[in-house]
């Protein structure tokens, strides 16, 4: 039995969905582009010394003062758009991942603790979570960013605050169901300490739904960040993320200089759709009801 580990079986099943595999490849490729952006970009778009306003808003293929072709054209500051997209991807994925993982950690801890401990603490934590879930995430993020000010850390903080509740809900539901199962009772009856039971039994068994929510929430973080940046509440203009690139090009859409907004937009859409397809497949595989 070659695929006897849970991960091996998971991959064998994942591989059967061609679309999901393509999406996964896209996600990996875009992540690689983001990671190696400084090595593969024709230009460092954050280095103001490289920028020339003479090159601003040029169409794709234009050979600028740098002596090379701007394959996707340039933006209003004269940045090479291809480089800007690579760097923008880098920022978007960084923020999405960081916000998603921090929210996962905080949310999962709260949810699992609430389910494990029960009683007053359970009611308290879950009421707060429910209260927060009744507000739109974007509203909360907007208010927090406005209060905290601009900057990566502040943005991540706002995104975490807006999203941890989803993780807490999911973790709570999963942990509550697992808590009642015999293997948890068996572990407690040994007796093993609460810490061991939570970390070694409860947490690993709550991971599947959390991973599903995490993929979707990372995509949501990325689009939320883009939205905030588009509204001018995200990062400083000197370090444009995808959302800000779209925003920067927006005034020129109607004047025929579509590429400034459209290409970053296409990159953003491809990334988010790909993450969601992967997330859907993961969810289907974890959902026993859809199992044949």
């Amino acid at each position: 039995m070659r695929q006897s580990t849970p991960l091996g079986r998971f991959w064998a099943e994942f591989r059967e969905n061609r679309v999901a595999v393509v999406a996964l490849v896209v996600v990996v490729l875009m992540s690689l582009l983001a990671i190696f952006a400084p090595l593969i970009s024709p230009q460092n778009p954050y280095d103001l010394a490289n920028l020339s306003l003479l090159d601003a808003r040029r169409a794709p293929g234009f050979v600028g003062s740098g002596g090379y072709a701007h394959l996707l054209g340039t933006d209003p500051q004269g940045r090479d758009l291809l480089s800007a997209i690579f760097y923008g991807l880098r920022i978007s994925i960084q923020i999405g991942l960081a916000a998603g993982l921090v929210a996962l950690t905080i949310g999962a801890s709260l949810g699992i603790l609430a389910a494990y401990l029960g009683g007053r603490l359970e009611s308290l934590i879950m009421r707060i979570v429910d209260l927060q879930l009744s507000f739109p995430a974007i509203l909360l993020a907007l208010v927090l960013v406005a209060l905290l000010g601009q900057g990566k850390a502040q943005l991540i903080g706002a995104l975490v605050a807006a999203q941890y509740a989803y993780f807490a809900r999911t973790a709570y539901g999963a942990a509550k169901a697992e808590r009642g199962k015999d293997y948890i009772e068996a572990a407690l009856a040994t007796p093993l300490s609460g810490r061991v039971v939570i970390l070694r039994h409860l947490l690993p068994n709550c991971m599947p739904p959390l991973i599903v929510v995490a993929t979707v929430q990372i995509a949501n973080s990325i689009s939320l960040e883009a939205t905030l940046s588009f509204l001018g509440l995200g990062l400083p203009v000197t370090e444009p993320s995808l959302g800000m690139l779209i925003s920067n090009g927006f005034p020129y859409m109607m004047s025929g200089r579509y590429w400034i907004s459209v290409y970053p937009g296409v990159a953003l859409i491809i990334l988010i759709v790909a993450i969601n397809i992967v997330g859907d497949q993961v969810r289907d595989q974890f959902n026993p009801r859809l199992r044949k």
Partner: protein
Amino acid sequence: MSAFLSVANVSRSFGPNLTTGEKIAARLGASVETRHVQAVSGVSLTVRKGETLGLVGESGCGKSTLGRLIAGILPPSEGTVQIDGAPVMQGGRKVTTRVQTVFQDPFASLDPRMKVGMTVAEGPIAHGLTTKAQAKAYVAEWFGRVGLDPAWVDRYPHQFSGGQRQRIAIARALAMQPDVLICDEPVASLDVSIQAQIINLFLQLQRDLDLTCVFISHDLSVVRHVSERVAVMYLGRIVELGPVGQVFERPAHPYTAALFGSVPKLVLDADELVHFEPIEGEVPSPLSPPPGCHYHPRCPLASEVCALDIPPLRDVREGRVAACHHAEAQLQRY
């Protein structure tokens, strides 16, 4: 008789798990169920060292709850459980490893994401019965004793059949080197051809390790086979307790008689198909059990006193007790 495991006047009730909203609604007069279920009430019994006590009854009679009280999984509302004079629980926490449990469903009682070797090893490591370095050999030894290939320690539960999983669950319990083993319907969810294997394994290990056992089952033939004495429960109370052969052949409580009478027996002779003596009616709701003897509304021997006084467990024969006002009359029926 020297009591090794002693259960003294143990009771356990369950309240409904109300949310804050429901509590408020109940205060305001909404019809929210606030009554408590008396799952086990005033149970006392003792088990000798090395003895197996069978615990039988229908669903909802409290046998599983009693098993969990003895195993230290649930704290009793009242009363104490002691092993060799030492309490199993103190302040709502289990303070001993001398009692371990084998659960009914081996598909649910093993962590699906943990290698089975680790499942068996983690308890003994946590309690210093073995070290991390020696755990592999320790687990291999127990795997061997329950008839599993020690090479399988790195597999996951889904790679095993039901019978094999129950062997793993037995190994997990025994690796804690308990004196008392609680078996909660250990063969109920296994295939018929596998049940005999597990029962044989249990009998052999129980003898080899001189285990004191409480064997809970709804299957009377299994209980009769493995236990020395049997306790019959009905709606949270023990109605009869005694040596298994005597209780099965000549029940002193009308409920015991009726329960045994309604078990289908294997028809090996005669073209005539079976005689049943089904008990009239159903088990009443444990939320509002009948007054007096809980069994009186279904009992053919019931008289006025049965509806008024709770019959105490009393000696009816040498080594046998029953909670029935008419135990003598019941014994006369045979």
